[in-house]
Structure formats: structure tokens, C-alpha cells
């Protein structure tokens, strides 16, 4: 009910009243966030204010030293909040393990803190705003309401896409007129996102959770199948969420960045990261990778270090655990291998490209990604070891037939087929009205709604909400 009510209020005030529309959006966003835990509203407001004023302060002075000071204050605040809520306990625990200390033996103890939903997303968004103002890529806004809306815009607040201020912020100052076609597109994208989340991801999660709950009980093929399904689960879950977010934003007349571009078609790990969680990769490329390599684009060593560090940080962004750090580092390692020439003919070290037919390349990158997604799913390094050992010890899989659900495979095939066929579009249902008449369209929508209700998997939280 939240979305229709907000939408009705938003359009009822009229498109000429931008301030009123933004105020409705802000209240709705804070209400939405407060539903989860109202205490963290204070944090999001504080983060917004810090960056709002830091950017204005940067603009107000000509002194580079002062500008740097304001920028560092903003970055320190953002990283500090992130560190406190997300990484503090991890580092304290690891420190204790490193020096073989028991609790109470060291000055700092772990804190009993809940990780605020969406912290990693909005922190990165606000931080990039201050950096962009400092780098003179954008002008700071003086409109506090618009800035608060930019940070807390509810469709993308809790799990992205991570928007650049230059893309999203100006949209809050522009008139948003009600365009029926755009709103219909938004609804279609929400419907498609729900299908991916509820029918694909949640059903995949059911099998994955079962197998990963007791991996010792399953054979090699079952473990491999569950690991592949985990990749599908996380894709359906996160890209489904992104579609819902982008679609919801369209209902309000906003355009958000594309976050996924059929990543399973990637012909290399490098390309995979250009297709997967695109806005996160873009953020790290702009604010971590490029600053590290600076102008030394030709320095292979520097570039490789930059790749490895960037990917390890992308891993760490996902969560405070070694599994995520190793996951990121492993991706970095694969990308470096891909980019490192074997010989003067500049062949990749990872693939003997000439030896592999082009059509098979996605399977190779998919294999690498699947293996590394084990790190993503496992609770700890020991579990990774159990799964990998299980897969590579070629134990017969007695339970394989029981975990393969033919109907789910059919739905998965339909999803992949539709996405691949319509790959040049944002999502399969886009501009469907150009191709089929209204009764046919409605039948398609009703079928999708039926599938969502009838074949929904057990309810699972969106995976990326925890980040």
C-alpha cells in the first residue's frame, strides 16, 4: 500500500509543485526507512547534512588546503560510520586472533551494533558527491530538500543502484511530468523484477539453503548444482531488486542507472564486472581504480596493483569477512590474468582465446564466477573448504534428482531465453505495447502475476539488503 499511496499523493499535488513533490518523496523515504528502524533515520540525516555542508564549504573557499580539509572531513565521516557499523567488530576479532588474545585481554571490545540497512549504498552515494564537488565535476546544490531526497530516495535507498550526484541530483530540480508510457514501463519493470525475485531467486534459494545447510550430506554434482543455483539466486535477487527499484523510480518520473546487463553472457571476468552491479563497479573504478593508477596507464605493475586492490575492496564492501575479501581478490587475480599477455601476440593468460570458440567463452567465465560465488555464499573459510573439497572429490550425488526441480528449470530457461532474446533492451517487457495489442499484453501480465503467486519460493530477504 505504501507505493500506491505515495504515488497518488505525489502526482495529486501536481507536477508544477516540485517542492511539494520532493517533500512527499522525502517524507515517504524517511517513513520507508524508519519502518525498519527509526533510530537510524538520525544517521542518514546526519550523513546527508555532513556531505551537504562539506560540499558547500568546499565551494565557498578558494584555498586548496581548506578544500582538502573539508573533503577529508566528509570522507572521514562516511568511512568512519561505515567502519563503525560494518567493519569494527571484524577488525577487532581479527586483531584478537592475530595476537592470540582472549576477550578482555585487549583494550577494545566488540560492539553490539546492528548494521543499518543500505548503509554501504547511501554512504557511497553521499561520499561521491563531496568528491565530485571537490574535483569540480559538479556544482554543489544549495537546495537542502533536494539533497536530502537524493540521499534517501526510497526506491534505491536500501540496495542501490548507487547513483552519481551528477545523474540523480539534477532530477530533483526538474519538473517531472506524468508520462503514461513511462509509468507503464515502470510497472512492467517492477513486474519483471518481482518474477525474477520471487519465482527464480527464492526458489533457487530453497535448494541452495538446503544443500549449504549440510554440505557434507551431498555429492559433488549436487554441490556444484547448488553453487550454480546460488549464482542464479543472487542474480535473480539483486537484478530483480534493481528492476523493482528502477521501475518504482520511473513511476515518479525518475531515471535510475542500469545495474545489470545480462552478466551470464560475459565472455570474460572483466566483462562480467562491466555487466554485474554496474553502478558499484563504476563507483570503484572512478573513485578507487583511477586515482590509484592516476596517469600511469601504461604501467602494468601499477595497473595490476590497482585492479587487485579495487577488486579486493569491492569484496570487502560486500561484508566484513575474509570470504568477501578473498572473493574480491580472486576476481582481481582473474582480471589481471585475463589482461596479462601470454606472448607478444597479446593473448590472455587465462584463456587461450584462439583455442576456445567464441561461443564457449561465457561458459568459462561463468565457471570462474560460479566457483568464486562459493566464497560469497559460505559463512566462513572452513565452509568454502568443505564445499570445494566436496565438489572436487567427485563423490556420487545420491540426492541430485531430489534437488532438481523441473518446473524451476523451465522458469529459469524462460527467464534466460527472454533476457537473451531482448538483450538490447533494458528488460524483456520493455515497450511491449509496440509489438502486441492490449488483450495479449494483459494476458502476459496476468500470467506473470499468476506465476508470481503460484510458484513463489519460500520468502527470502533481498540478499543485498544486508550490505
Amino acid at each position, binding site marked *: *500500500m505504501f507505493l500506491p499511496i505515495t504515488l497518488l499523493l505525489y502526482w495529486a*499535488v501536481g507536477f508544477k509543485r516540485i517542492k511539494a513533490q520532493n517533500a512527499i518523496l522525502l517524507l515517504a523515504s524517511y517513513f520507508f526507512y524508519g519502518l525498519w528502524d527509526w533510530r537510524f533515520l538520525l544517521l542518514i540525516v546526519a550523513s546527508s547534512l555532513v556531505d551537504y555542508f562539506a560540499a558547500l564549504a568546499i565551494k565557498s573557499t578558494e584555498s586548496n588546503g581548506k578544500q582538502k580539509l573539508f573533503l577529508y572531513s566528509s570522507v572521514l565521516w562516511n568511512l568512519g560510520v561505515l567502519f563503525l557499523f560494518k567493519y569494527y567488530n571484524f577488525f577487532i576479532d581479527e586483531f584478537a586472533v592475530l595476537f592470540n588474545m582472549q576477550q578482555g585481554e585487549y583494550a577494545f571490545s566488540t560492539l553490539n551494533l546492528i548494521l543499518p540497512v543500505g548503509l554501504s549504498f547511501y554512504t557511497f552515494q553521499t561520499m561521491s558527491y563531496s568528491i565530485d564537488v571537490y574535483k569540480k565535476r559538479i556544482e554543489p546544490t544549495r537546495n537542502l530538500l533536494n539533497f536530502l531526497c537524493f540521499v534517501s530516495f526510497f526506491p534505491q535507498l536500501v540496495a542501490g543502484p548507487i547513483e552519481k550526484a551528477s545523474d540523480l541530483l539534477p532530477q530533483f530540480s526538474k519538473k517531472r511530468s506524468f508520462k*503514461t508510457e513511462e509509468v507503464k514501463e515502470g510497472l512492467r519493470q517492477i513486474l519483471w523484477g518481482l518474477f525474477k525475485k520471487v519465482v527464480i531467486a527464492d526458489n533457487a534459494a530453497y535448494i541452495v539453503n538446503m544443500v549449504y545447510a549440510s554440505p*557434507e550430506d551431498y555429492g559433488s554434482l549436487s554441490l556444484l548444482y547448488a553453487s550454480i543455483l546460488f549464482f542464479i539466486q543472487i542474480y535473480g535477487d539483486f537484478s530483480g531488486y534493481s528492476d523493482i527499484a528502477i521501475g518504482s523510480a520511473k513511476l515518479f518520473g525518475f531515471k535510475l542507472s542500469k545495474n545489470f546487463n545480462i552478466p551470464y553472457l560475459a565472455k570474460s571476468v572483466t566483462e562480467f564486472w562491466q555487466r554485474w552491479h554496474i553502478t558499484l563497479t563504476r563507483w570503484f573504478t572512478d573513485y578507487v581504480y583511477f586515482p590509484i593508477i592516476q596517469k600511469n596507464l601504461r604501467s602494468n605493475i601499477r595497473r595490476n596493483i590497482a585492479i587487485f586492490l579495487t577488486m579486493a575492496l569491492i569484496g570487502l564492501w560486500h561484508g566484513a569477512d575474509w570470504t568477501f575479501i578473498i572473493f574480491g581478490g580472486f576476481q582481481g587475480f582473474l582480471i589481471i590474468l585475463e589482461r596479462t599477455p601470454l606472448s607478444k601476440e597479446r593473448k590472455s593468460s587465462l584463456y587461450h582465446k584462439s583455442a576456445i570458440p567464441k561461443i564457449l567463452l561465457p561458459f568459462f567465465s561463468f565457471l570462474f564466477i560460479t566457483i568464486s560465488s562459493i566464497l560469497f555464499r559460505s559463512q566462513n573459510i572452513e565452509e568454502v573448504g568443505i564445499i570445494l573439497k566436496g565438489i572436487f572429490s567427485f563423490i556420487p550425488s545420491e540426492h541430485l534428482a531430489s534437488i532438481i526441480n523441473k518446473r524451476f528449470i523451465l522458469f529459469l530457461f524462460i527467464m534466460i531465453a527472454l533476457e537473451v532474446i531482448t538483450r538490447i533492451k533494458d528488460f524483456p517487457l520493455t515497450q511491449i505495447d509496440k509489438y502486441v495489442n492490449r488483450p495479449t499484453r*494483459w494476458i502476459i*501480465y496476468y500470467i506473470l502475476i499468476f506465476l508470481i*503467486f503460484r510458484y513463489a519460493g519460500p520468502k527470502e*530477504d533481498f540478499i543485498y539488503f544486508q550490505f
Partner: protein
Amino acid sequence: MPGPKRTLSIFSFSKTQKRFLKYCLGFFIPVIIAYFILELLVLNIPINYKVFGTYLDTHSRKIKVMALGSSQMKCGFNPALSDENAINFASTSQHHNEDFQILKGTIDRLPKLKYVLLEVSYNHLELPHHPNDYWKNTIYLKYYNVNAFERPTWFKDRLVYLSNPRFYSHKLMDYYFYKTDHSQLNEYGFDINNYEGAFKKLNYDETKIASHKFKIIDREDTAIFKKNTAYLFEMLDYLQAKKLKVIVATLPLYKTYLKERNPNVVQRRDSVLSVIKKKYKNVILLKEETDTLQFTAKDFLNENHLNPDGAKKFTALVNQKLDSLN
């Protein structure tokens, strides 16, 4: 000249918006109607929770015993055979956190409540609790009027089909189309016809049962163990503060299942039971998990659940314990 004042109402929509609203209503009204038909069909299915809820409403002033637990307790304790007026709130996969919410949410409605029968099964303490949005919370809200969400509830929290479409879709098909639902619930919500399990299919033949494959969770998790144990103690503290007598029970398991249990998990669970026995004066233990003398293959539905015959024996043992508490 200033235009007429715009008011915040449906009338301030433009023609395009109004047309689109009509379009949406035309599209969504059939969906909403279809959904509510589904919801009504689901509510019409005679599931045990509904019977528990009705029994709770009609007998709340008489109930003296409350059973809580998972499917083992659900299958093992038949309130109809209890010497004291009882209600069995146990249900499949129900964990201690749900047990506690049900207890807290109903206790004020049960003025005569004296005893609580609580299950601590083999791996109860090493299985994670369900999150606050567990689908059964809708059932507890709908049928027992217990808010286990631990937050203000909304209209959608009462929609039963929506809480678990997968589960209820199967239920709907089984009940209305395939007619495969053979359950026969007594007035307490206990299924007196619950014999259709693996053991019946194997004709209770012990040789066949010995080679029958089943699933057992033998995973250890000491972090969850610590958390769950602390939670269990919190629950027992509450029961003690409420001056209720508690029977902490382990239910019978078939010998093939007993053999497959993880000894570390068993040992940790048993050590907790020993602590409970020493710490709480209001608690007595009913350890029947390894009772292979009284409970034979014919008493089991499958490796870890009793059938109604087994439930008869187990309920008799509960009656004995209740006598000893009096």
C-alpha cells in the same frame, strides 16, 4: 491572473492521469478479486492452526496444559488423551522463539494455565531461530491473535495465502483438486489419522526400515548453540517468574535415527538438560528420545516422528509426569 487554487485531491489529477488510473483499476481489480478468492479458499481448508485457534477461543478459561515445540511434539502429544485440559501449539519447524512468542501472547488469556510442555529435540539448540518475518507469524496472528513479528502489524500481515504462496498453493491443490489430504483433526487440532508416513509404506518391516534412507541434520554450530541456549534459559526464567511448572521433553526417535545423530550435538544438548534440571526447581525432564523399549516401529510415522499410536504412549508418559507434579 492567478489560476484556481489546486487542492490535494483526486480531482486535481489531469485527464491523462485519470485515464491511467481507470486503466490501472481495470487491470488490478480482477487481480485483487482473484487474490481474495484464493484467500477465502485457503481460510476454508481445515488446518490444525485454525482448530487450535478455535479451541483457544472457546476453552481458554479451562486450559491447564500448553504444549510447545516442533513437528515432533505436534505428532507426539494428543491433548484429547491428556488428563488435564490441554492445548498443543506445536507445529512443523516451530522453534523456541515462536514458542516463546505464543506463550507470551496467550498466557494472559489462560487463567488456569499451570503446566507447559516444552520440547528440546536433538538439534533444537543448533538450528538457527527463524527471522521476525517468518511466514508462520501470519498464522499466529490470524488464528491465535499473537503478534510474533515483534513490530506493529499491517493489513498484509494477516493475509494467509500471501505469507507462503508455495505452501498454500500445494494445500489448495491437495485439498480441492487431488483430494490427497487425509488428515482427520480432532477438536484439539491433533491429526488422529496421521499414519501415512515412510514406515507405513515399508509395512513397519524393521529390515526394510533399517535400509531406508532419511535426512538428518548432523551439522554442529556452537555459536547458534550458545545463542539458543541463552534464549531457552530466558524462556525458562519467564516460566519460573510466572510460577508455571514445566516439563522439558525429548521425544522418541527410531533407532536408525538415533544412530545417525551427531554425538557432539547430543552431548551439548544433554549437558543443557542437566543444567536445567539443577537450575530450575519448577522444571522436570521427560527424556524419551532413546526409549526404544516402549516405542517400536509401529509407533512411528517415520524415523523421527510418532504416529497417533506412539502419541498415545507419549501422552500417557506426560500424564504420569503431570501426576508427579501435582
